[in-house]
């Protein structure tokens, strides 16, 4: 019996006389795979940060709901000027930060100015690029003026990177996050777990749980064991695909397979020969059988994609047929590109199962057309340094889990080294207009361009494989943003 169980048991005994015996449980232990480097969502790109703090500890003007729609958060309502350039936000009143300081328009101005400052360490500065000025009209009114109309502005303000922080605590949020959310940080035992507790002074509808513990369990086998033993009661993103069938057959558990924003791709170094040749990239795409990769690496969980767009998006185009598995065509393209015998290259694989297992399958498939890809397993820190930062790689596999991230292929400094003026122009156009048929059309053109240019091989959309106790309610089915929103989570008995 581990310490946690002893502790729970002790708490249960202590509470027995005062609580009615039918009271529902009010604490929850969740499993997560990666430990966040720190807890400040405005100063880091790691998804693991948002998976703890988003909607639980920190809130923004707007937020993303379980279905991916933009909902009001700290802003009660807003109006948009006719030219689409001025947004006026009406803020909630009586909102307090966890340290007792009052939230007002000044905090909004501070947070947005801080994030878009030149010296800002925000990982997603692009979200704020459209903002020209932020004015606090009165304590409960903020006016944001944009340089040009932006169709994504309200969506961008809902990201974890755009949450509102207080000037008093902004510099210490990494270790002591102080937000306005329904939970506050209670304790962080590094390497083991992060505990958040209900914020009794929350301005909105209060959390149902009194306490939630995020237990860090990187090993898929240990994740399975922890769930079966009841040490962990929910795994919102369960890492062991092969044991999901076992949980599906077990009435004690609920298995919920949802969608995420994670486009899983095999990135290629587009500036490095032979990958600078579009025919080589197309040959590689045609040599890979997505279905086999999904069956083998993911045990069938995952939707094939033919471009860099999530299948649940209304503007999605199924382009998988453009790069359908065709070994003969791949061989022909490779010959046309001047590599009839194939070539030797490397494939750097970060730790997740989809990459390590998927990489082995892809390497075997590439061998069929003569490409010898040497597998090099790397840890996350090495991957970030060698591949992401220094672009020292040939091929790699990674899932891009940010929402609305088609524009990464338009970024000059991005690790794909893909430099396409027509694509950059398209993204510029998309970012300037609001949702509507015109934008959908542009999205589709951009998808087609990527599918033809193949700067990366588009493999599959990562599923959200949630496994939790059947008596838990309120956890998200899908992952429209990196989050484990616990505000509505409760036990049903």
């Amino acid at each position, binding site marked *: 019996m581990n310490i946690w169980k002893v502790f729970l048991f002790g708490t249960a005994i202590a509470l027995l006389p005062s609580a009615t015996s039918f009271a529902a449980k009010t604490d929850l232990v969740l499993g997560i795979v990666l430990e966040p480097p720190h807890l400040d969502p405005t100063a880091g790109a790691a998804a693991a940060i948002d998976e703890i703090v988003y909607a639980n500890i920190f809130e923004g003007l707007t937020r993303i709901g379980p279905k991916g729609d933009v909902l009001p958060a700290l802003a009660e309502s807003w109006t948009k000027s006719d030219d689409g350039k001025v947004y006026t936000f009406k803020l909630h009143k009586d909102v307090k930060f966890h340290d007792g300081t009052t939230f007002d328009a000044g905090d909004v101005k501070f947070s947005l100015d801080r994030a878009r400052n030149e010296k800002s360490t925000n990982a997603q500065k692009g979200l704020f690029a459209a903002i020209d000025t932020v004015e606090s009209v009165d304590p409960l009114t903020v006016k944001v003026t944009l340089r040009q109309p932006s169709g994504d502005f309200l969506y961008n303000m809902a990201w974890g990177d755009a949450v509102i922080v207080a000037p008093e605590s902004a510099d210490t949020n990494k270790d002591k996050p102080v937000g306005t959310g329904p939970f506050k940080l209670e304790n962080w035992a590094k390497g083991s777990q992060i505990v958040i507790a209900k914020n009794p002074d929350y301005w909105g509808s209060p959390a149902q749980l009194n306490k939630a513990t995020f237990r860090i369990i990187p090993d*898929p*086998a240990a994740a*399975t064991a922890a769930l079966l033993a009841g040490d962990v009661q929910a795994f919102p993103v369960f890492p*062991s695909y*092969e*044991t999901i*069938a*076992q949980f599906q057959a077990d009435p004690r558990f609920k298995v919920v397979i949802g969608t995420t924003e994670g486009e899983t791709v095999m990135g290629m170094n587009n500036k490095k020969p032979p990958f600078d040749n579009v025919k080589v990239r197309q040959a590689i795409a045609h040599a890979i059988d997505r279905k*086999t990769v999904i*069956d*083998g690496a993911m045990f069938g969980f995952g939707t094939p994609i033919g471009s860099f767009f999530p299948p649940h998006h209304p503007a999605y185009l199924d382009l998988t047929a453009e790069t359908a598995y065709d070994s003969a065509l791949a061989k022909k393209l490779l010959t046309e590109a001047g590599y009839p015998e194939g070539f030797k290259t490397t494939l750097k694989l970060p730790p997740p199962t989809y990459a390590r*297992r998927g990489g*082995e*399958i892809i*390497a*075997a498939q590439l*061998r*069929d057309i003569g490409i010898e890809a040497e*597998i*090099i*397993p790397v840890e996350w820190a090495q991957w970030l340094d060698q591949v992401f930062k220094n672009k020292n790689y040939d091929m790699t596999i990674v899932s891009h889990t940010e929402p609305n991230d088609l524009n990464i292929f338009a970024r000059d400094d991005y690790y794909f080294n893909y430099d396409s003026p027509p694509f950059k122009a398209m993204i510029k156009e998309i970012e300037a207009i609001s949702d509507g048929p015109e934008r959908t059309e542009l999205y589709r053109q951009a998808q087609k361009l990527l599918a033809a240019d193949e700067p990366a091989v588009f493999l599959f959309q990562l599923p959200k494989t949630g496994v939790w106790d059947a008596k838990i309610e309120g956890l998200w089915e899908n992952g429209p943003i990196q989050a484990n929103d616990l505000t509505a989570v409760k036990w049903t008995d």
Partner: protein
Amino acid sequence: MKRATSTKSLIANRSFLIGATITLIIGVMAGLSFAWTPYSVSTLDIVAKLKPPSISHWLGTDHFGRDILSMIMIGSRASIFVAFVSVAIGAGIGIPLGLWAAARGGLVDEMLMRFNDLIFAFPALLSAVMITAIFGPGAINAIIAIGIFNIPVFARVARGAALALWVREFVLAARAIGKGEGRITIDHILPNMANILIIQGTIQFSLGILAEAGLSYVGLGAQPPMPSWGRMLFEAQTMIGLAPHMALFPGLAIVVTVLGLNLLGDGLRDLLDPKLRYMR
């Protein structure tokens, strides 16, 4: 000292017989894998994944639909290769060091042996992790790590055995006729301790197989697509509920091989160690 070991006593020694047979079978299996395996392990057949043992796949298939018998056959190469080369490194460096220390004594002996202690105290796994961090994972680095770990083992055994021999009458006689330290070591010391070294070699060989399995289990050994027993175990661990045979057979392969080598070592000791022989 005579080294007469009759064929009869070889067969009468059951440990030796069983150990030698197992070792021979594993060796033949590894050799055969260069020419033939039931299935190719470089092509994956995802449709046929996790099949239990059957007539077509005697030991079943793994999560990529590869034939486990073929994987074990080819995996034995990595095990044997790593174990053999690391024993060769350990013996090649350790034995001369031990002999030198015994022959010279004094400061040389003291320095060599303390240096030995230093390496010996360093966990092999830790040095493997360090070597991997510098040069990247791979079978060669596993060999270096295990090989380094073998050096002090051989040096100690060699020194101990040699010291006992240096005080014997025939060595004194050799000195008396004017033979030098090096000459005596090669002519008299080494031949008379060969048995001990052979036994130690067998034991280190089986430890090398275990160490290779351990290193590749944590991802520091042979890299995919090259099969290795340790990694087969690692890949099986999340699938134990689905396909227990994936863990069972590579595990058995390691157990049987190590058992065989240990029995062989025991048998050789019984046969070669003169003290034990006279005690019967």
